[in-house]
């Protein structure tokens, strides 16, 4: 219709051969991103995999091919295995806690309000939304540094408040090293990550819940469903895709976690209890000069991340298949 004036944009009926302008269009829209993708994403990946099979030290162009020795070395290295384990713990707990918490909060501010009249959130919900989104606007490294100070055993605000607890409870927090005890270092670090992300995912879920037709809630309410029942039987199934997406992003973030962990516990925490793979990778490359081995760690990290994403997709499909019926 509008193409009538321009002969080059003729209808494609019967024409299997591309016209030059169309070819140009395809090259620009598909070819250019493809080249960028191959050059900046795929090629470095392949290079990393290649380096992981060498003993490259990082400071010369010479390296020997050593097969899978790097992988053997890192899988028999208890420090790396501990870092891998910590990453798995993070990948399980961080998304779970964040998603549950932000889903509950999102429900409260959108559909958790009064049960009479139109479906709506709690009073003053926009204030809660702003307040809880606020941490997300602060860069991760700043969050890490602020919390590292707040957790300081002698002068941090956390112990400053806790030591005033009554009945002698407060004494237990005198100079208590939140980031220095094996039992608390990891939970304290997870708390910081969750604190930083709950607001963002709450807003994400709020947007998804707003897209659910109000009639569904009205119908559920007429049928006698309470708040909890509505949450699990209406809200959750309707925003399942968003929850899955949130789960994957948070998992990828937890598998990296470099910035938070490096700011909170640059040395890996007591007994390496907060060391993550990316920190071990950084140390192996830059302070021990074993770039080949560090590349192998990177490859393992990438593989674990892909595996995690596949797992979340798989679980969602399994659960989704049931509720679709």
């Amino acid at each position: 219709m509008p193409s009538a004036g321009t002969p080059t944009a003729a209808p494609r009926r019967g024409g299997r051969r591309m016209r030059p302008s169309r070819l140009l269009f395809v090259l620009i829209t598909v070819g250019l991103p493809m080249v960028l993708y191959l050059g900046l994403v795929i090629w470095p990946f392949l290079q990393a995999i290649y380096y992981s099979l060498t003993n490259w030290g990082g400071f010369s162009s010479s390296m020997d091919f050593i097969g899978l020795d790097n992988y053997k070395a890192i899988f028999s290295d208890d420090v790396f295995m501990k870092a891998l384990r910590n990453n798995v713990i993070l990948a399980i707990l961080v998304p779970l806690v964040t998603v549950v918490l932000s889903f509950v909060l999102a429900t409260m501010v959108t559909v958790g309000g009064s049960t009479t009249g139109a479906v709506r959130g709690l009073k003053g919900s926009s204030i809660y939304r702003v307040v809880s989104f606020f941490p997300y606007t602060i860069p991760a490294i700043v969050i890490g540094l602020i919390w590292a100070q707040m957790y300081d055993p002698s002068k941090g605000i956390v112990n400053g408040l806790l030591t005033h607890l009554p009945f002698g409870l407060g004494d237990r927090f005198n100079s208590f090293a939140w980031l220095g005890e094996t039992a608390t270092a990891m939970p304290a670090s997870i708390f910081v990550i969750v604190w930083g992300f709950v607001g963002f995912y709450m807003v994400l879920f709020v947007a998804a819940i707003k897209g659910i037709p109000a009639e569904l809630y009205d119908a559920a309410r007429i049928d006698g469903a309470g708040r909890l029942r509505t949450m699990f039987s209406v809200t959750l199934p309707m925003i399942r895709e968003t929850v899955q997406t949130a789960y994957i992003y948070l998992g990828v973030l937890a598998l990296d976690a470099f910035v938070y962990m490096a700011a909170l516990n640059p040395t890996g925490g007591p007994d390496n209890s907060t060391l993550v793979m990316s920190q071990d990778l950084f140390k192996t490359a830059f302070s021990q000069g074993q770039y080949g081995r560090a590349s192998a760690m990177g490859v393992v990290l990438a593989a674990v991340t892909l595996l995690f994403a596949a797992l979340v997709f798989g679980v969602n499909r399994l659960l989704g298949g049931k509720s679709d019926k």
Partner: protein
Amino acid sequence: MAQSNFAVNRRTVLRAALAAGITLPISGALASCAGGGSSGGSGGQSTGKTSANNPFGMADKSSVDAVIFNGGYGVDYVTFAGKIVEKNHAGSTVKVSPSTQISQQLQPRFVSGNPPDLIDDSGAQSIGVNTIASQLEDLAPVLEANNLEGTKIADTLYPGVKERGMVGDKMLVLNYVMTIYGLWYSASLFEANGWQPPKTWDDLIDLGAKAKSKGKYLFCWGKEAATYYQTMVMDSAIKEGGDEVRLALENLKPGCWSLPAVQGVLKKMEQIVKAGYMKPGGAGTQFTAAQAQWSKDQAAILYPSGSWIENEMKSQTKAGFKMTGIPDPTLTSSSKMPFEALNAAPGEQFIVPTKAKNGAGGKEVLRAMLSKDAATNFAKTKLAPTIVKGTVPSDGFGSTALQSQIKMLDAAGEKVFNIRFVDLYGTNPDMLVPWNSFLSGQLDAAGLTKALQGITDKVAKDSSVKKVDIK
């Protein structure tokens, strides 16, 4: 709709962040592709004629490219020496570039065969020297040359400079700043309480009790610096057992942490921890905050550290603190080395790459730095002695810490040693972990011994790590 766009952006960001983590090690190699095989031997070297005023044959009107670690000492002391070189070699220029990420920034330049002419390879992100040993110049000729006043440089230095710089059979590193390890305290605080600076571990334990009665702790520590206590323990153990202990540790011998001298000291340290003389919470405290507990709050009365401590805590030291250093304590009266023996290691590693375009120029800058004017300038402005003797007047430019450093060095004479394996093999991050547990009382001396032995054994057995034979 808008929602899903946002989500895509978010994912891209996350993926980019992840990719950055993975591709970090590769960036150097990519740069090497860009460099395009310019790594042909030492082709870039341009040299002029050697003469008395130009012992390394720095080319006329050439430029020197120096990359200097911009840490506690800054870079202006190299600029100062550069000015001297520019004056002595009219038409030549010395460009000093500060850097805090030596390893990351210079890695691509090494790979592409275009390294700078002089590097101060120091700081947390320094390059492990044994990983680039084959690409570095022998700096022994610098010590053999005369300084700008006409004296042979080797004759003007404190002992241990050459030994500390040896990698294999060549002196590849010239460490410029004299660093003295010991215990630091406030002379005014000790005077006010009538305390004597401790000379033995038993003195230390007595002092711990006295401090406790005044509501103070003997020591405090920070999580990134827990291994300062490892240095103190090793120093004492080396004084107790002599070179035999030092060489066992340095060459990562099996069972080195179980030697009687090491164990004797560790037992005493354990006693201090168990008696509650350590300020609790160190494993969760950032190290400069912990150091301020000693220098400002005076919650702890002693701190084991290197002599950089005065400069590092300058802005957070109580007025009238009178910071003073003493050597690390001895274990028994029959120790192989006396109390005065000192762990004094020159630090700030200067290196000259073989493939540098103007390596002779780099050495010429070093020669200027080792001459009287530049060395005195350093001591005066940084309040730390260089490896050049006799640049600090007895008033220590008004610093009690500097006075005590010179006093310790003079008292030690030739009885100076140092410990290199931790830096050589980059094991400090691993060692911090058990030390933090030990100092907070979660691990006993036996557990610490086992953990440390595990770390040294791992390096010793790893055939991909090149070992340096230390004598």
